[in-house]
């Protein structure tokens, strides 16, 4: 089923606030824990206590520094990255077996692990590094948007969000329907100028990123302070502030 659906009823995805993410890796590990225990094959770790520990992760956080052109101080941005559930998902169409597919009802891009031959081509086709081949199981792993949480009737309604969103301490991750212009996530994107990653590749990602706000703009942000008794010394200060006395 590697043809992409012409349109999906909903576009479930994440909105990630780069102005709020502190880079704590909570989402990375919550994702690892949930997806090791539930959907599909566990996310394995090779050489976990050795010289080259290397595991499968569906969400990773990069940290970048930006040096402003105006000579200001360098700024750091923590940058979580997982599958963006693209409308034009190139990872889906390249799959030779139909293991990769995009769901018509909610737009989630999934891998049918029983059909995956582990050819890696979908990972090659993804510009974002969202897919990782699990070395123990030999199948391609990727963010499922916690499909086994968001519809899970064994979970309370409020917990039916991806594990990364539920755990994010700073509230930098938002989950919702980006096809609905009135959804909270769509409004956030509109208000804060949410953007696509590598838009030039026309993958039409569903996930959006909210840009960091401009930093280091303190000068002139508040009325300047002026001495109340310039030259008047302590006595002058007391008279002005406490009155004669």
């Amino acid at each position, binding site marked *: 089923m590697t043809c992409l659906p012409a349109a999906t009823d909903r576009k479930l995805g994440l909105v990630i606030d780069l102005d709020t993410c502190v880079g704590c890796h*909570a989402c990375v*590990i919550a994702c690892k824990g949930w997806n*090791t225990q*539930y959907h599909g094959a566990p996310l394995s*770790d090779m*050489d976990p206590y050795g010289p080259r520990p290397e595991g499968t992760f569906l969400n990773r956080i990069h940290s970048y*520094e930006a040096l402003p052109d105006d000579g200001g101080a360098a700024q750091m941005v923590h940058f979580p990255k997982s599958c963006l559930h693209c409308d034009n998902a190139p990872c889906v169409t390249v799959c030779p077996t139909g293991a990769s597919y995009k769901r018509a009802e909610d737009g989630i891009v999934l891998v049918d692990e029983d059909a995956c031959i582990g050819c890696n081509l979908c990972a090659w086709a993804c510009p974002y590094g969202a897919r990782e081949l699990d070395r123990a199981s030999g199948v391609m792993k990727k963010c499922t948007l916690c499909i*086994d949480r968001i519809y899970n009737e064994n979970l309370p309604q409020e917990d039916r969000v991806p*594990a990364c969103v539920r755990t994010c301490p700073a*509230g930098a991750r938002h989950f919702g329907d980006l096809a609905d212009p009135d959804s909270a996530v769509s409004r956030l994107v509109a208000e804060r100028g949410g953007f696509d990653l590598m838009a030039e590749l026309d993958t039409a990602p569903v996930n959006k990123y909210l840009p960091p706000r401009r930093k280091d703009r303190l000068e002139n942000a508040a009325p300047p302070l002026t001495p109340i008794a310039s030259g008047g010394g302590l006595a002058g200060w007391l008279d002005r502030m406490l009155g004669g006395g």
Partner: protein
Amino acid sequence: MNQPAASTSPRVSDEIRRTTCYMCACRCGIDVHMKDGRVAYIQGNRDHPVNRGVLCAKGSAGIMQVNAPSRLRKPLRRVGPRGSGAFEEISWEEALEQAAAWLEPIRRSDPSKLAFFTGRDQSQSFTGFWAQGFGTPNYAAHGGFCSVNMAAAGIHTIGGSFWEFGQPDWDHTRLLLLFGVAEDHDSNPIKMGLGKLKARGARVVGINPIRSGYNAIADDWFGITPGSDGLLILALIHCLVEAGRIDLDYLARYTNAPVLLDRASGLLRRDDAGRPLVIDRRSGRLCPFDQPGIHPDLRGSEGGDSTVFLAMLQEYLDPRHAPENVAERCGIPAARIRALAAMIAHAAFDQPVELDRPWTDFRGEVHRKMVGRPVSFHAMRGISAHSNGFQTCRALHLLQILIGSVEAPGGFRFKPPYPKPAEAHPVPHFAARPGQPLEGPHLGYVRGPEDLALCADGSPARIDKAFSWENPMSAHGLMHMVISNAHAGDPYRIDTLFLYMANMSWNSSMNTRGVMDMLTDRDEDGNYAIPHIIYSDAYSSEMVAYADLVLPDTTYLERHDCISLLDRPISEADALADAIRWPVVRPDRDVRSFQTVLIQLANRLKLPGFVDADGAAMYRDYADYIVNHERKPGIGPLAGFRGDGTAVGRGAPNPGQIARYIANGGFFTHPVPAEASYFKPWNNAYQDWAVRMGLADKPQPYLFQIYCEPLARFQNAAKGQGARQPPDHLRQRIIDTMSPLPIWYPPFDEAAQARDFPLHALTQRPMAMYHSWGSQNAWLRQVHGHNPMYLPMQVWERHGFAEGDWARVTSAHGAITVPVALHQGLNGDTIWTWNAIGKRKGTWALDEDAPEAVKGFLLNHLIHELLPPRGDGHRWANSDPITGQAAWFDLRVRIEKLAPQSASDPGLPPVLSPVGRGPKDLAWRVGTKGNAP
């Protein structure tokens, strides 16, 4: 076309067991999902007051901690030389017998021969009680090398501090200043709070040499030069005072600003009952500060004595505090300092927060509203781990007080049982008597020289020299000095060193290599200088190899614990709260919870408080103690579900208490009444509530201490007044540093070292490993497997560094060889690295060529507990002269470029692993196939 079917409703678990996380000091509530009796998945508890459902990376990685291959399995007795790691497994009976055989004789002869220090202990009210029963004065936890400056300055100034003591008013603040915070005990609440601030567009300012983490999302970054925070704060105070942008009403009502200062003694004027005296503005009469109906006069004077307020004005209006005069030293342009002061004033006074909540103050005045200054602060080790840290922390609290933002809406709020002024805390108890318990708790807040822990001959009574003239107000003890003092026999020799959860032969010590030598050093008879070492830990940490007897602890999911109001609880500003841990899984090893082992030892040693008059054991295990121990009648470790199950705070022990906690999600919470929610130190409703809850014995309203009188008492002693006199070589230093008004002085030895060691060197704990007990966690170690030394652009370019280069970093004490990397958002005179990534070869069940052991490194090798010799006959401690806090961040270094190396240096020889090595791969899945619906 059919799309494949995906299973969307798998069964999540058989059962959820709710307990408390122990991956750091944050103590979040966790939902442990169980499958087939094993831990399947850990998530945050949505109902929990600390974390409201969120959970950090460490918490979510708990499953790898509970199943870590580094877990100790059985008691161990050393068979090889100390430090080799050669052990034999023994039974618990043998282990307890051995421990008792060492402890019983010293208790009978001289209990001070035992030094009992606990590291990341979250049961200090219990371990302290045990040590008290044993009778040794030598007990403390890790606060002395952590942040005692912050705690002591806070208690002495405002009756509380940050982290467990209080928090920003996240819902109302409009401006938050973070001083020296990379990560904190309050790790999830800070992140949640920052998220709230960001969501409503409030401003966050980060003051930190390093721009990462919280400082990365701060709207404004002040890349301050280490050790100069106090200077910056006093400059902000100068600007605010000079412009008259301070809260005079608040100062007059709630602080000792209007209290009269006795010109001759420098002490506060007091009445016969000891109450500080003020002048009532309307009557002009001299009155005790708390007399109903009075309005204290900031400008009052009597008999030639004037107020603290005037002394303060004189001090901080002085032009030496002007931004222009501190800018260079701080590494911050004067204009930016002025802009920050202006922003503080603007946020505090132009946009006050008003809550429609009437309240009554301790003088009987009724206030219609709660008016607050929406500027809040949070600070941590960055400002406190300096030799000027105590005064810097005091300065920060003064700034908070001046703008009236402590315990006011939008500002900083205490969490019950705080506020609690120094006078409400005990003074230190230290008199050791053969076979007898100590008369009271070890740690406390000294009011003056009379409270110091000194022997009759004036020598320190404690092995760590806490509460001595070298560091009179060392409220958390000095764990980092114990081993070197015990090794040197200064002030005396000990017999047994008993440590819990403290990696003293590694990242918890300065001079790591030297400490290893001290632990293995022998006297002329071939006996170890420290004769016996008992160590308890759940994991094969670096310290294990240096113990003679190892008592294997349980992991946090296998034990009972209480996060008690007697200790540092988990309260929020709007509620008191405490919590438990309980065994959600059974240990699969022959291990016992350390607290239970202490009880078993106490029963063998027949320690008072643990056995009744007939010598019969009062408690079976720690759970029994948690439920049945009463510190005072009706007040026990847990506040919830007392008596018949409905009593709060005070009530008889309830045998069903732990079951009630478990049913309630592992915690208990009780709201602070709305009219008691702010202005707690002066709010009658709060004071009465606190007494009802058992947090205080009587209402105890108090004034914030702008002028800290205990400091003046020490200065007076140093000037020759009083019966208790400091040694002469300390007099001038006491006079210079123990100013009763906050001051700044350069970090010790800075002038001597600046030429040879031009750079500052710091560490930060990564959020994914902050305070967590070991980085052997299979998931977390992939995130931080080794640590580069980060260099600023200036240093990078000056030395011509390129990617992949290494460097030799040298301090006055030693040198290390390390990999380097560039960090542009960094103070130009500062280098830094992630702390405690480096591991000793052979520990933590890691391969000997694990990156932590090969590339990873510790900065500790560069830091000594003493300053370099200065030719004056004394070795001065590398710590704050007031509290003894380890001055980690005073470190000065120089750097040289090296070609790429294969391993960092010093590379220490491996130790034998008592637990073998971890498995070659993991594909963690418990229970039957998780996808089954």
